[in-house]
């Protein structure tokens, strides 16, 4: 009799059921999340199979015939795709670098500023643009740089010839990077400032006694103090290098350059969304998958490298 009860108690299913019952309220609280993540994140992952199918809207995603890697071959053969990929890589990686530098430099300057009130005011101002949408910023940009905009007014007033800023590709790249710093440098500096505030003051005092200059203190104390946070944030941003900023590109691209400078996301949006030829759907999905896989591989690689150098990774 006793043997039976013991074996019943150890029955893995019963054990599981008993444990689940103990935390039934927590499970009730997590259930909506599971449903949401399955529907809105995992079902689209299942949709990746579209990349390996020739999509037929009548048959639906599941019943459309497989076509192996044909979609990918199509993508890699497409002469339009590689410039887009190149743009994405350039814009994405330059933005990571300047975003990082902008945030760190702003943080160091704010940290070194000794006038407390000024510091607070400036911090409020420089963090504010983060809360604007790229739509609003595009309004500012066009009013400044359009052919009949403010900058050309100044040029003309000082006797120069007006410039077609918004038809100029190199200028557009500059605009992307400049507005990115304008919008995010202040916001990005917050985390570094908080880290700097956590550096023990006695390190600076010891350096003072040794007669270190401001610059030496920044180089030997402040920068090493924010190193691990910086590496952590860099790893996180590397995974998004191919995202490169859909919102920004879509809104800032002037009409004259529309379709001429695309990144992967805007390329997919312009060519494969909405009323499109069903044969194109698989190709669009293949581009999307290509992007996701590269991002994933990059995060893992950078994480490994960081760990090899003795830093805390994220995975």
């Amino acid at each position: 009799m006793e043997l039976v009860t013991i074996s019943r108690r150890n029955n893995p299913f019963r054990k599981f059921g008993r444990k689940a019952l103990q935390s039934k309220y927590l499970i009730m609280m997590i259930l909506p999340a599971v449903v949401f993540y399955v529907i809105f994140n995992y079902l689209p992952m299942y949709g990746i199979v579209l990349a390996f199918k020739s999509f037929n809207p009548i048959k639906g995603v599941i019943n459309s015939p497989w076509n192996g890697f044909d979609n990918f071959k199509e993508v890699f053969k497409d002469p339009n795709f590689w410039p887009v990929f190149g743009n994405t890589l350039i814009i994405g990686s330059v933005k990571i670098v300047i975003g990082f530098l902008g945030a760190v430099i702003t943080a160091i300057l704010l940290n070194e500023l000794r006038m407390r009130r000024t510091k607070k005011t400036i911090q409020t101002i420089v963090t504010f643009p983060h809360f604007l949408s790229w739509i609003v910023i595009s309004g500012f940009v066009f009013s400044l740089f359009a052919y009949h905009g403010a900058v050309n007014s100044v040029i003309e007033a000082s006797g120069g010839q007006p410039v077609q800023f918004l038809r100029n590709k190199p200028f557009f790249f500059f605009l992307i990077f400049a507005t990115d710093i304008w919008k995010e440098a202040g916001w990005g500096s917050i985390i570094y400032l908080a880290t700097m505030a956590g550096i023990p003051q006695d390190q600076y005092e010891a350096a003072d006694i040794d007669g270190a200059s401001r610059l030496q203190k920044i180089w030997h104390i402040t920068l090493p103090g924010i190193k691990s946070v910086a590496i952590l944030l860099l790893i996180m941003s590397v995974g998004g290098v191919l995202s490169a900023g859909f919102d920004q590109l879509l809104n800032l691209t002037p009409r004259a350059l529309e379709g001429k400078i695309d990144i992967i996301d805007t390329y997919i949006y312009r060519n494969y969304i909405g009323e499109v030829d069903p044969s194109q759907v698989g190709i669009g999905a293949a581009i999307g998958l290509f992007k996701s896989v590269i991002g994933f591989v990059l995060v893992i690689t950078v994480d490994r490298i960081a760990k090899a150098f003795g830093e805390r990774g994220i995975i």
Partner: protein
Amino acid sequence: MKKQQLERLPLRPKRSSRETRIQGIDIVICIILVFFALLIIFPFWHAFVISISSKDAYSRNSFLLWPTELDFTAYKMVFSDMRLWNGYKITLLLLFVGTLYQLFFTVITGYALSRKKWVGKNFVMNMILVTMFFGGGLIPYYYLIQSLGMMNSVLVMIIPGAIDTFNMLLMRNYFASLPAEMEESAKIDGANDIVTFVKIFLPLSLPMLATVGLFFAVGNWNSWYNAMIFISDSSKWPLQMVLKDMISEMSSQMETPTATETFSEGMTMAAIFFTIVPIMCFYPFLQRFFVKGIVVGAIKG
């Protein structure tokens, strides 16, 4: 007390003198930062001046540092523009309904994941973390929304955003940092998990709730992405989409002007202020909540 001071004196330079001594480099730093701040303020100021100038003044010179001919027609036109008011209505709906909806689901998920071991916790946690690094992409998502019947519906701007992973982890870390003894004593008094959450943990996490709620609120105020992709009916557009439309009209007007009666630049700038003034008014007072959110999130996350 006196002994302590004596000990400190030779070792540490007096703090106050170190703080107040302003060197040349401080002035340089100050100038750089003030310049950066002015660079940020300038587009706002310039847009504001355009919005309160007359069309004539603007067409003579589009670089306006100071309003020469005050004219509020642009604002009159903006306030009588039904598209904008309609967009405002949709945006307010997103702001209130969307924010509460997101807050509710994000907070309960964060709480459940902050509790000690329970069956399936690790599984769910990993399932959520994977989505931070890998996704299906836009096209499968597009067909998902289509098959859920949410095309062209206001719901598409609310329903899918129930849980934001970053904010959820923020809440989870906060709940996990509160002393676990409170939960134990509540359990001993016979409270279940939901009662413990509502009566004990929720009241203690109001500052963090405010932070996460504000992140959601700003996101909803600025939301346009889902509307652009899934909503073609412009009467269901939020404010930002209406603004996007106006800006693209304005930019083509500014590249190749056609003779029109309306002052589309001034009107667009006025519309921009119509959408950012609420954030501008609240931001200085709410800044600390945002700062707190990003600091807590990045250091612990």
